[in-house]
Each structure stands twice: as C-alpha cells, then as structure tokens.
C-alpha cells in the first residue's frame, strides 16, 4: 500500500484494520463440537490426520459453546433437539458463524417427516451450506474455505 510503495521493502505490511481483524478471525476459527449423526463421522474424519483440519487453525474442537466461534451443524436436527441447538447458538459469543453440513442440516435431506426440522436455517441463521449425504471431508473443507472467503469480505460493523 502507501508506505511500502514510497520507501521500498522495509519488512513491513500495511493493511486496513478491517482486513487485519478478518484475517485473524479466519486463521484460528475454533469449531464447536456439534456432531449429531452421520455427518459427524465425516467431520471427525476431516479432523483426523488424513484430511487435516488443524492446518486451517481448527485443531481445537471445543465442546463448550462459550469458547468457540464456528458451529458446524453436522447431522439431522430433530424437533426435540431444536431448542437445544438454539440455546447453544445463543450461548456462543459474537462473532459466530454457522455451517450447515450435509443435506439434513441444509434442507431436511431424505427425511421429510414429522420428526426432522426441514433445514437448520429454521432455527439458526446459516452462513454456508455444504451439500452431500454425508459430504466428503474435502467438501467440508471447501465449505470452510468458502466461509473464510466470506469472512474476509465482511465489514467491521458486521458483528456488533
């Protein structure tokens, strides 16, 4: 930017505050352990050594919502579980993001019946939907990178 162009390579980088904050938010986003059903197993596979999630800064899967930024809703949400999901979402501090992983979380999946909430966006606002039943770990990583791109474009006032 300005200073580097004038004075050459001083080992400095200049950024806007917005870019810096978004950069820190994406590089160490801690997911909350919210695996419900089959997608949770693929999320665990993504966490394991073959498709490593810790290279994205997501090594720590916190079970406590108070210490996490990202809620990956992995699996089918039943009507009994929906109030629990909302309560956990409310307990997460800002800034927080939600990935709806899998078909059941995005739209109810193959279970179009009385017991399953047809899409977790009826309960919490969702940022990224990842399709698949279950989505491959690579698809989940693609969803996370999409979320990173989305966060990098956020304005500073997005999370009050």
């Amino acid at each position, binding site marked *: 930017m300005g200073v580097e162009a004038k004075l050459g390579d001083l080992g400095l980088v200049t950024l806007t505050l917005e870019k810096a904050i978004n950069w820190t938010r994406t590089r160490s986003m801690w997911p909350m352990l919210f695996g419900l059903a089959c997608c949770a197993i693929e999320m*665990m596979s993504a966490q394991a050594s073959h498709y490593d999630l810790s290279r994205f800064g997501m090594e720590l899967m916190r079970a406590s919502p108070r210490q996490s930024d990202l809620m990956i809703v992995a699996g*089918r949400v039943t009507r*009994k579980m929906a109030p629990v999901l909302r309560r956990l979402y409310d307990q997460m501090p800002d800034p927080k993001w939600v990935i709806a992983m899998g078909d059941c979380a995005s739209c109810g999946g193959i279970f179009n019946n009385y017991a399953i909430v047809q899409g977790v966006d009826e309960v919490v606002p969702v940022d990224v939907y990842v399709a698949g039943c279950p989505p491959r770990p690579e698809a989940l990583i693609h969803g996370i990178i999409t979320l990173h791109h989305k966060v990098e474009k956020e304005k500073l006032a997005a999370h009050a």
Partner: protein
Amino acid sequence: MPKSDSGRRMPGMPPQASVTESGITPEAAPFDDPRLAEYRHLVSERALSGETVVLNMGPQHPSTHGVLRLILELDGERVITCIPDIGFLHTGVEKNMESKTYIKALVMTDRLDYMNNVGNNLAYALAVEKLVGLDVPPRAQAIRVILAELQRLSSHLVWLGTHALDLAAMSVFLYCFREREIILDILEMVSGQRMMTSYIRPGGLWRDVPPEFEPAVREFIKIFPHRLQQYERLLTKNPLFLDRTRGIGVISGEAALQAGLTGGALRGSGVNYDLRKAMPYSGYEQYDFEVPLGSAGDVYDRYRVRMAEMPQSLRIVEQALDRLPGGPVQSANRKFVPPPRSELGQSMESLIHHFKLWTEGFDAPRGAIYSAVESPRGELGVYLEGNGGPKAQRVYWRTPSFMNISALPILAKGHLVADLVGIIGSLDIVLGDVDR
C-alpha cells in the same frame, strides 16, 4: 448475570436457584420445578431434599457418542441414579419406510446405525429376501460377507478411537482413522460412496466389484495385523488404561441377558451368543472363525472382546476372498430385481420390468418375518410385515444400542462420573441406532 436465552429453555433444565439477601434459599429444591416432576419417582429420597445433586449431562457433551442426555443424581462424584433421556435423534425412519416401496426404502437403512451402513443394508436385504422368497447367488453372498466384515472393522476402529479419546488417549484416535480411510477407499471403489453405499440390495448387489477390489483388500489384509499390534501395544497393558477400565461397569452374564444386552457387551460377560454362529446367514457357516468371550464383564473385558474380534474379522475376509466363486451377483428373478442397464436397450421385457419395479415396486405377500444379523453392536433385527402391496405394513428395527443403553442405569450405579464416560464408551452405542 447470564443473558436471557430468548425464552427457549432446554427441556428439563431447572431454573436458576433463587438468591435472597441471606444466600441461596434451601427451599428452592430442584424438584419443586414442575417440569422435573416426571423424574420424581426415579430418583432417591435424598434428591428431593436437595442432599444429592441432580446433574444434567446434556445432549451436547464432549464424549463424541452423539446426542444422549443423562440425568445423573450425584452424591459428590458418585452416581446414585442415572436416567438416560433419548430421542434427540429420532428420525421417524420406521414411519418413513412405510411410505416408500421396498427398493426405495433401502436408501434410508444406511442412515440408521451410521457406523454400520453396509450391515444395515444387509439386514434389510436379507429381510426382504426372506419375505418374498428371493434367492441370492453365492458370489453375492461372499462379497456381502467381505463387505460386512470390513464394515465391522471400520466400526470397531471408530469405537476404539472414540473410547480411547474419552479416556484421554488421543493418539489412538488418529491411528484408527488412518486405517479407516483405507477401508472407506475400498467401499468407495466398490460403490462410489464412502459411507452410505446402498450397495447391498434385495436379490444380491448393485453391480459386480471392479478388478481393483481384490488387490486392494489383499493389501489391507497384509498391513492391518501389524497396525492392530500397534494399538494393543498402546492400550492393552497400559497401567493408566487398566486403572480406568478394570472393575468398572461390571455386569454378570445372567443380568446382561435379562437386561437385553447383545453383542460385545454381552460377550464381555461370558455369554456365547453371536448370530453369525447361532443363526448363520449369507454363508457364514462355511467360514472358520472364533468368537472371543470375556469373563469379568467389566469395561476392560468388553474392550478385549472387541479387540479380539478384529483379527477374526480379518480371517473371515481372507477366507471369503480366497474362495470367492464366480457367477452373477444378482438374482435372475426379474419380478423383484431390476435388470442391468445394458439389457434395457435390447429386450422389451427388461424395459417393462425396469419400469414397473422402479415406479410401482414389487408386491410382498401378507405375512411377517423377523431376520437378524450380527452388527458390530449386537443383534440387529428387522421385523418386516407385508400386506400384499408394494409398501411395507410395518418395518420394526430391533436395534442393539437401544437395549444396550437401557442397561446403563444398572452399569453406572455407584461409579464416579469419570468412570461413566468409560462405561458409555464400552457399550459402543450409536445414537442413530438408539433413536432410529
């Protein structure tokens, strides 16, 4: 002060204790809350007076076994009563399967016990075949056995990884998932999908295995025993692991049978009941394998039983692969099994069969059957009742984890909360299996 949670309260959660000038009033005992009245008859007297603590080990907790809620009555750290509250993953599969034809309902069976997808398909396919009287060619039976045993291995690996993770041995988790990736690669090569394969269908298989299947499985058979030894070296004689698992969650064989336990949990107490030996299906009687049994009925013995089952599964896979017969992989009965796509261009009959089977489905006779397989968790049975039409009258899944969880109050009595985590892990439950 915690922020209000927009009015939605988790079911069964007690309100905040009332704080007055003189401190927390003792009259605000937990069971004054009418929403907890439903547990009043299950907890001891001491809970009603507030002497013991009623703790909610809620549906979201770190031991990654799924959404299970436990209401614990604790005296300090000791569990007096443990009340499981299930249903947080109830998917209504049984009702949904009644509204689909028999072939289309197969897709929903993968997602019940999501660690044992191939096994669920197998259980349902065997049930449908028994109901309508369909034959299965021997090559299909042998491949079914190979895939079912590979799935058993993958399920036991996840069990081992998560069980060890709960007892704070994290590296075992990473090693187990490394092996599991190889098995998932084999499943993907065969069916195109890592987990929900829908490969085993009534009448045989979806299609024949590709030529890369045999070398891949042989490669796996070669490397796996060494890896198993790695896990054994890490855990079996580890004094920390022994301390956390010996003498915990003991149940006798007789009590286990009365409580409805099956599978590894039952065999850990010494009862020799394995459906692959007791009521063999899909050609299991031709293979030579042992059923390991425990004696003490504690967490450690259940661990030893499942660890010993893994080399036996590998033995079955090797034998089945050595004796793999040639021939078709689907029954030739076109009234029930759709024809292969290559025939559709040539034969008018095939086209009509294909059309009728995929739109209307085949009719099943009036009558009911019960068919059970040995899933990695225990006896997985399907009670299938037909009503003369293309859709089932009733599909009842007798799932092993359902009964295994119901025995948890007996197993957990008197133990510490930290032991409870080990006991839940040793029962090897999958919540999709419990709640269906």
